[in-house]
């Protein structure tokens, strides 16, 4: 019974095809129309006034792309007031990183008010998927991706491992108060 029902529910839709008239079947007028389009584009894009052309291509190195404010580019590590690394090696970012590409080794700081700091902080840019989760995860605004620039292309695999000092060299002071408002 149920089988019958499914049989009846098969929907057949007829595609109505428009019959081509003779002129269309000879292909010639349609072809002339097509040629008119390509010719128009050809001459439009060949005119000396570049502004009036239809080309969309951005002449990249001469004409830089304007990035949106929230563009995620090169990672950077923010700094404390005294220029030390802000990161407290809490491992939040390396835990959340879906590409598993942040490698941190925590070390004890000489200053007793600072519990830990990263003695090694390496981001493997070959694995990074630029998701920005590390920035979200960081509890103390220590890692950011708002440098507004691309990661450079790498000539060698080793160059893709960005270390702490390099990331810090792009860093700057954060507006957030270290250790929280009361701290």
């Amino acid at each position, binding site marked *: 019974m149920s089988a019958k029902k499914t049989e009846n529910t098969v929907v057949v839709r007829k595609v109505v095809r428009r019959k081509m008239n003779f002129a269309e079947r000879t292909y010639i007028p349609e*072809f002339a129309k*097509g*040629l008119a*389009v*390509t*010719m128009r*584009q*050809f001459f439009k*894009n*060949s005119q000396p006034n570049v502004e009036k*052309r*239809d*080309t*969309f*291509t951005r*002449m990249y190195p001469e004409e830089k792309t304007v990035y949106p404010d929230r563009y995620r580019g090169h990672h950077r590590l923010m700094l404390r007031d005294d220029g030390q690394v802000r990161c407290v090696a809490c491992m939040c970012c390396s835990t959340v990183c879906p590409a598993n590409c942040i490698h941190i080794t925590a070390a004890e700081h000489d200053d007793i008010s600072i519990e830990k700091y990263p003695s090694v902080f390496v981001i493997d840019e070959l694995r990074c998927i630029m998701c920005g989760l590390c920035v979200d995860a960081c509890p103390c605004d220590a890692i950011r991706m708002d440098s507004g620039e691309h990661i450079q292309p790498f000539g060698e695999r080793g160059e893709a491992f960005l270390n702490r000092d390099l990331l810090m060299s792009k860093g700057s002071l954060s507006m957030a108060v270290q250790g929280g408002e009361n701290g």
Partner: protein
Amino acid sequence: MFDFLAPATAEFLVELLITFVKVVLIVFVFVMGVASAMTLLGDRKQSAKIQNRVGPNRAMLFGLPFTRILGIPHFIADGIKMILKENTVPDGAHKGLHLLAPALVFAPSLIGWAGVPFMDFYCTGSITVDPNTYREICAVGPNGEPGVWRNYFQIMNFNAGLLFAFAIAAVSVYGAAIAGWASNSKFSLLGGLRSSAQMISYEVSMGLCLAGVLMIFGTLDLNEMARQQGYLLWGWLPMWGIVVQPLGFFLFFLAGMAETKRAPFDVPEGESEIVAGYITEYSSMKFGIMQLGEYVAVVFISALIAILFLGAWQVPFLFGDGFHFPGMETIEIPYIVVIVLRIGSMLFKILFLVWLQFMMRWTLPRFRYDQIMVLGWKILLPLALANLVVTAFIAAIL
């Protein structure tokens, strides 16, 4: 046996030198120049313009940005790349034939230029035009002794130029077929078969279109054909092939385009089915030669169309001594300007036809293989036959 060495006088050597210069100028400067410029300008820049792109423009010479003009350095880079690439021959390929095939594709399209006239014969005396028949008369001196017509603008003048051009052009079918067979690859074999089937099918229609032209002009000499196209029909219409054979022109253009195996008729190649067809197994300059051969074939077909249907070196109403507009006084023009105008007209026609072919190439979608066969055998062939019959009737009545 060596009798031909006897007249090795200065005159003979001068003739030899002139022929040599003609060969170099026409084949190596003009044909190769246009064909290689087409690989860049036609294929990349023109398509880019049509598709709202910019096309290649990054390469430059010696780091000088102004050399980027039109992307010419890309073309030089391509050439260097082609020459320096490793030349591989697949295992089990027939070495000799694999080597021979590119030559068989390339050489015919160059040899065919032997018969292409870029200008009428050069008249050593002063030229006058018979106002009734528009025949050009070459005379020397005040008494009107007949002057000498010298063949300076055509490599070789012979009365079977058209047959020669087609016989030679047909050889390139062997090139494609041998390339396919010698590569020891199924893709190549299929590509070679497809291209030979396609070329042979379209050659039939091409030949029939030519028969119509032959009936009208009654000569196989390409230069004589060009000369006849200068005559005026009813006193005002230049008798170009396109005027007297409009359908023939259309069919010949289509068949000629199909003959060159470029898009939209590029079934011998097909990335998704048979990779690059019969050139799949070619690398390095052998591949370059194959490609260049196809481009040269495009230029050659354009030249043939220009000669047969667009009046070759004719400029409308321009004769040896100036413009003869119907119902107006003759506008006198020095002979040297006439020569320049005529050569310019021929070059312009060839380049225009090349440009048009590329335009069509980037307009039409690619045909399926069966569609190409249907077009060739069921549409072009009957139309060409009908054209032939109608032409024959008209020629018989007039």
